[in-house]
């Protein structure tokens, strides 16, 4: 089957859903299209999962000044995995949204946008050509803008949408130029060609460095890494299923996917890898720390996403292709689960503030158990999938640190281990605050309907069983890009011990003062973390304020220095103007006459002067 179907089906679905409007069936039709897309995705992707083969479908070609843009799609092992991930999560999200947005007046546009989002992600994943990828990439950005701003009546949703749009766009400028550099370096816009030329050494190191640094701008923006990380938490006012979609399978994953896709080019540029390593190290720890102090469940999850993405980048930065991809998949499953469960909680009690929750274990049993699995995966508890994937990441990092003794490896290892601790802390904190102790605020009305529970259960099962993948490393790395095992027993033991200690300590802290937020232990630091180290403020101070100040200075200069001259000139001009005023009679035809006469004079003059 032509992989274009995976792109076309949801697009058609989007149109159909848009046409249906706010009919009762809208959500179900959307879900049906999700299912069809998923089946198409299965059909397209399954043959290539774990296979070293790849297939290329050329749909057309567009001539440009330089190399032609080929509208081509490629399915290979990596693309197949991501197609599966994206279509599965999209289908589950659509199914989930049927009930979640039952009474929502704008559910037609919502469903259509989710489908379009899927189209865009499929385009990104399947694209063979950088420009085709860029199209998907940008459509995804636009969709995320609309979806984050879905409740545009709320000012925070509007602000979040604009912020997400501007920050990702900032990165995309770099990405666009990165594409130009890659294209001129290889003479083709094809991703495969870029990888080949980098692998064969045809592309010089400096070219690869420049290209990848520029591409990383886009990646950092899309995947919300430091320093463009602030948009992701602010995107939380959007509907929760959207968060699941964005965080688990599409938008942010696209950045990781792109880096994995351009792995050969990446490998050709040590500088780019070092930069990525630093970014990953800073982001993973910072974001995890921010997550500890948040009061809003979705914000906790958002920061955790940022932190977990940094893990993937960490793996990719040291050449751990398999570990990175594995963690991408695993994170996709459990993060979708967490967000959907959070949505279920929000659906039940009408808020996402953890200060309003507590003791929800009884009322929401399904949500409780599935979310427990999710948190376990996030923290990396064995035998849930997160344990294995995180272990794989830390494994490659430690290999880099011990065997190659590189500073990047050490940096990442230290940061990664610290992050393990912090991650465990915020996971159990959130778990405790939501499900244990006394009910603090709203009482849950009901457990979610089956269409919302089913995705939760499915994803929980996937998270539980995902560890099996470790046994078949070929599945995530069919080409054998990474040497070494995915399992590292010693390291695993160490992290597990660390993890359990952290969990117990946090639990004890919570137990000691019954129901107290363990985060209070941070004291004043907590407030700082709660404000996320003031990055937003810093951006305000560092960029916005100087701009304003400059503007004010300019205004003042204009008013007090330039203005008198202007006024003098103005007085003179007014006298002149009084004379010329009769020309300005508002009669368009007089003006046009003058223009034509002027044009004629110029033409004649040119004819005369130029022989």
């Amino acid at each position, binding site marked *: 089957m032509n992989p274009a179907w995976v792109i076309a089906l949801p697009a058609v679905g989007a149109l159909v859903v848009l046409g249906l409007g706010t009919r009762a069936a809208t959500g179900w039709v959307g879900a049906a299209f999700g299912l069809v897309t998923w089946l198409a995705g299965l059909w397209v992707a399954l043959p290539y999962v774990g296979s070293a083969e790849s297939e290329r479908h050329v749909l057309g070609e567009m001539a440009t000044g330089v190399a032609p843009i080929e509208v081509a799609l490629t399915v290979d092992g990596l693309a197949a995995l991501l197609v599966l991930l994206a279509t599965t999560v999209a289908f589950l999200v659509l199914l989930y949204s049927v009930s979640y947005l039952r009474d929502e007046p704008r559910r037609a546009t919502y469903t259509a946008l989710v489908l379009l989002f899927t189209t865009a992600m499929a385009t990104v994943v399947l694209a063979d050509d950088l420009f085709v990828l860029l199209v998907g990439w940008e459509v995804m950005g636009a969709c995320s803008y609309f979806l984050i701003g879905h409740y545009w009546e709320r000012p925070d949703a509007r602000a979040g949408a604009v912020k997400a749009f501007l920050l990702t766009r900032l990165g995309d400028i770099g990405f666009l130029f990165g594409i130009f550099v890659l294209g001129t370096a290889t003479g083709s816009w094809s991703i495969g060609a870029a990888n080949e030329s980098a692998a064969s050494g045809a592309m010089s190191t400096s070219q690869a460095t420049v290209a990848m640094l520029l591409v990383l701008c886009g990646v950092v923006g899309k995947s919300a890494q430091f320093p463009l990380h602030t948009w992701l938490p602010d995107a939380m006012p959007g509907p929760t299923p959207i968060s699941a979609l964005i965080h688990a399978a599409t938008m942010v994953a696209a950045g990781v996917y792109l880096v994995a896709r351009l792995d050969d080019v990446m490998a050709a540029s040590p500088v780019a890898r070092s930069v990525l390593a630093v970014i990953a190290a800073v982001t993973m720890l910072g974001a995890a720390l921010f997550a500890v102090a948040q009061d809003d469940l979705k914000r906790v999850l958002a920061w955790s996403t940022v932190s977990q993405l940094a893990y993937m980048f960490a793996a990719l930065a040291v050449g751990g292709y398999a570990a990175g991809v594995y963690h991408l998949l695993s994170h996709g499953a459990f993060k979708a689960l967490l967000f959907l469960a959070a949505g279920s909680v929000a659906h039940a009690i009408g808020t996402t503030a953890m200060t309003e929750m507590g003791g929800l274990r009884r009322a929401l049993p399904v949500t409780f158990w599935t979310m427990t699995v999710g948190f376990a995966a996030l923290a990396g508890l064995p035998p849930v999938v997160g344990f294995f994937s995180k272990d794989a990441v830390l494994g490659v990092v430690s290999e880099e640190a011990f065997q190659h003794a590189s500073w990047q490896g050490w940096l990442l290892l230290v940061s990664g281990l610290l992050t393990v601790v912090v991650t465990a802390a915020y996971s159990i904190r959130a778990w405790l605050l939501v499900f244990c102790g006394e009910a603090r605020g709203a009482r849950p009305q009901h457990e979610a309907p089956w269409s919302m529970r089913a995705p939760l259960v499915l994803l929980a099962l996937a998270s539980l069983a995902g560890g099996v993948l470790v046994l078949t490393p070929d599945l995530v790395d069919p080409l054998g890009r990474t040497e070494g095992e995915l399992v590292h027993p010693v390291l695993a033991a160490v992290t597990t011990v660390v993890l359990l200690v952290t969990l117990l300590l946090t639990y004890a802290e919570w137990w000691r003062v019954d129901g107290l937020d363990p985060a209070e232990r941070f004291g004043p630091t907590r407030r700082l973390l709660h404000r996320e180290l003031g990055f937003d403020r810093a951006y305000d101070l560092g960029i916005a304020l100087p701009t304003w100040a400059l503007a004010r200075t300019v205004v003042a200069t204009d008013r007090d220095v330039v203005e008198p001259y202007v006024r003098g000139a103005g007085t003179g001009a007014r006298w002149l103007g009084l004379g010329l*005023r009769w020309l*300005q*009679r*508002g*009669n*368009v*035809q007089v003006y*046009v006459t003058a223009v034509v006469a002027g044009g004629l004079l110029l033409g004649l003059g040119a004819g005369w002067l130029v022989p």
Partner: protein
Amino acid sequence: MLLLFPLVVSALLFSIGVYGVLARRNAVLVLMGVELMLNAVNLNLVAFDTYLRDVVHSGQVLTLFVIAVAAAELGLGLAIVLMIFRSHQHIDIDRLRELSDSDAADEAIARDHQIWTGVAGGER
């Protein structure tokens, strides 16, 4: 056939269109003048296309585009004219002088100036 035939016809049509745009009072008639000018251009395009035996048919394709764009443009122009007719009950171009430099316009400009700069009171 002499290439001059179509070219001269086109030039004359263009000048007639210029006259129509400049001298007609009714806005719809002015738009007709514009159409004449566009058609003059089209004739040129077609003539040169045939003359040059263009492989990619730039002339004819561009003519098609011009026709399409002209249709869209004329439609919007006429819609605007109809709005003007509703608000003014006439569409005489030389009586539509809201944009003229009048005292009222000066005051409006001064007001705007105040809003933008925050300077209290104009110089007037």
